[in-house]
């Protein structure tokens, strides 16, 4: 019971903090918030196979085992979110260095005179 409470509240706190940061509208906090959200979802996926302590994630003669599939899912999710974070950091840096502005939302209409080609 104690473990469930710990994991559940960890997911909740990570998600709440992540959501708060995502709504900050500047690239750096938003990217930090995205990372917290991906931590939260990774722990959530991990817990989706039920929490079992001290059992191998493989079928053996023993009766107890941990569901191995969520671990595979989490591994995939970690790799993908790591790659995505790297991409968004690069694009965000490019936008900041090019435009001298790290806001995420659209610029005000009067500054929109610059035209992409």
């Amino acid at each position, binding site marked *: 019971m104690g473990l469930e409470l710990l994991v559940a509240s960890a997911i909740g706190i990570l998600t709440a903090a992540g959501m708060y940061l*995502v709504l900050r509208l500047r*690239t750096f906090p*938003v*990217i930090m918030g*995205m990372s917290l*959200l*991906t931590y939260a*979802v990774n722990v*959530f*996926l991990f*817990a*989706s*196979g*039920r929490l079992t302590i001290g059992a191998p994630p493989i*079928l053996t003669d023993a009766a107890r085992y941990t*569901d191995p*599939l*969520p671990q595979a*899912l989490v591994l*995939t*999710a970690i790799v*993908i*979110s790591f*790659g*995505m974070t790297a*991409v*968004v950091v690069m*694009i*965000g840096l*490019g*936008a900041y260095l*090019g*435009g001298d*502005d790290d806001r*995420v*939302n*659209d*610029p005000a209409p009067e500054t*929109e005179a*610059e*035209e*992409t*080609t």
Partner: protein
Amino acid sequence: MMHWIIAPVILPALLAPFIVLAARYHFAIQRVFSIAGVLSLIAISAGLAWQASDGTVTLYQLSDWAAPFGIVLVGDRLSTLMVLLTSVLALFVLLYAIGSNWDKRGWHFHALFQFQLMGIMGAFLTGDLFNLFVFFEVLLIASYGLMIHGGGNLRLRAGVQYVLFNLIGSTLFLFALGAIYAQTGTLNMADLAQRVALIDLGDTVGIRVAAVLLLLVFAIKAAIVPLHFWLPSSYAEAPAPVAALFAIMTKVGAYAIIRVYTMIFPPELAATDGLHSIWLMPAALVSLAIGMIGVLAAQKLDRLVAFSVIGSMGMVMVAISMFTPEGIAAALYYIVHSTLAAAALFLIADLVRTGRPSLALTAMAPASGAPLTSALFFLAAIAMAGLPPLSGFVGKLLILDASFDGAMAVWIWAVVLGTSLISVVGFSRAGATLFWKAKSIPVPEDAEPFPAPAALSYVAVGGLLALLVAHTVFAGPAYSYVERTAAQLFAPDPYISKVLETPGKLSSPTKEVY
């Protein structure tokens, strides 16, 4: 076992690294391989569509592992139709990118293009929800690169928005998958279809949350109001051929909604009762209205086209959220139409841009190549606004007809017909300002003339419009095909039994040695 069904995924996956590694500095070779790859994709997907046309469900078990433990690809009428549509669209987009030299304005256009195709094809063919997530990520990460192809500050900023919005979508997708797995212990679509129906009604909290989360994720992809805010900037700032290819990306969301909400959470399922009619239908009607009002309000041609994409996705979702065989059939007919029409409009916006300093909807001096461009714009606008004689009109008629007996008929008729009028006004205002008023503006004498667009660009746009004409002329056969596709979707038992009962490794544990 027949291996052709995995070819649409494998072929671009092999071609892309080859283009990066072997042909990095040779644009001519990149172009040849890219075109050859897309042509063979068309041939393969036409073969797959022909094979699925009699109702056969083709199953491919990777490494021969049996479902639900192994990963499966499934080809039925719907997925092969979407695969064929994607590869045909890709050919014309690629021709335009080559004709207009867009592919030379940055690095790795062709490699990213192939990776994008790989992701889209995989998303259409997979029979597993987690793989759907993985292929979404493949197509997204390629689209991030394509979206900022050519650089520029506005484009990079729009790219940041696009990436962040989609990352949030991916996180939601993972939460939904976790909830589904926690409740059912499987992520295979066919297996889920059976298990979700067995869940006791009092115990459906997890699966209901998951159903709503999944709908949100797919709604982000399909740009349904209120989750459409990423689309106008991204599509307007993306390079034209990329925006044209993205016309199929919103349809990936529509496809996923059709697939998941006819098979796993069908309308008659008590646990998710009302999700389709109470939530999805009004959202679709509002998207349609917002999109077409955006067409009227847009001050630049690229934004106008982006809003018309939102409007046409709203139209598609109105038809889908009826969740009747007639509604889905009309939606599929309209999906083919709106993909081709939206792609053509994005390419035409780029043709207009090559002759003018900007795309602002103000009168400017006539540009070289304007007569042909304006003729193409006229045709594409007729198609997108849904005026006779092109396929947009036929599609709209099918949607109105399908809704006639439903409870929402009055709302659907009012919104569809009202927004049609608004979009006609919006498109004719744009066309009149861009092409007609240009006659009254004298060309400044010292101005350098803009180069006329290349002939190949016109071939690409003309090809897309010719497909629209064909889609209209052969509307009868096309509709009877999508009707059969919808019938297959509403009788999923052959699909499910094919996926779950085909033998493979692990399907008979007694014979296996652990």
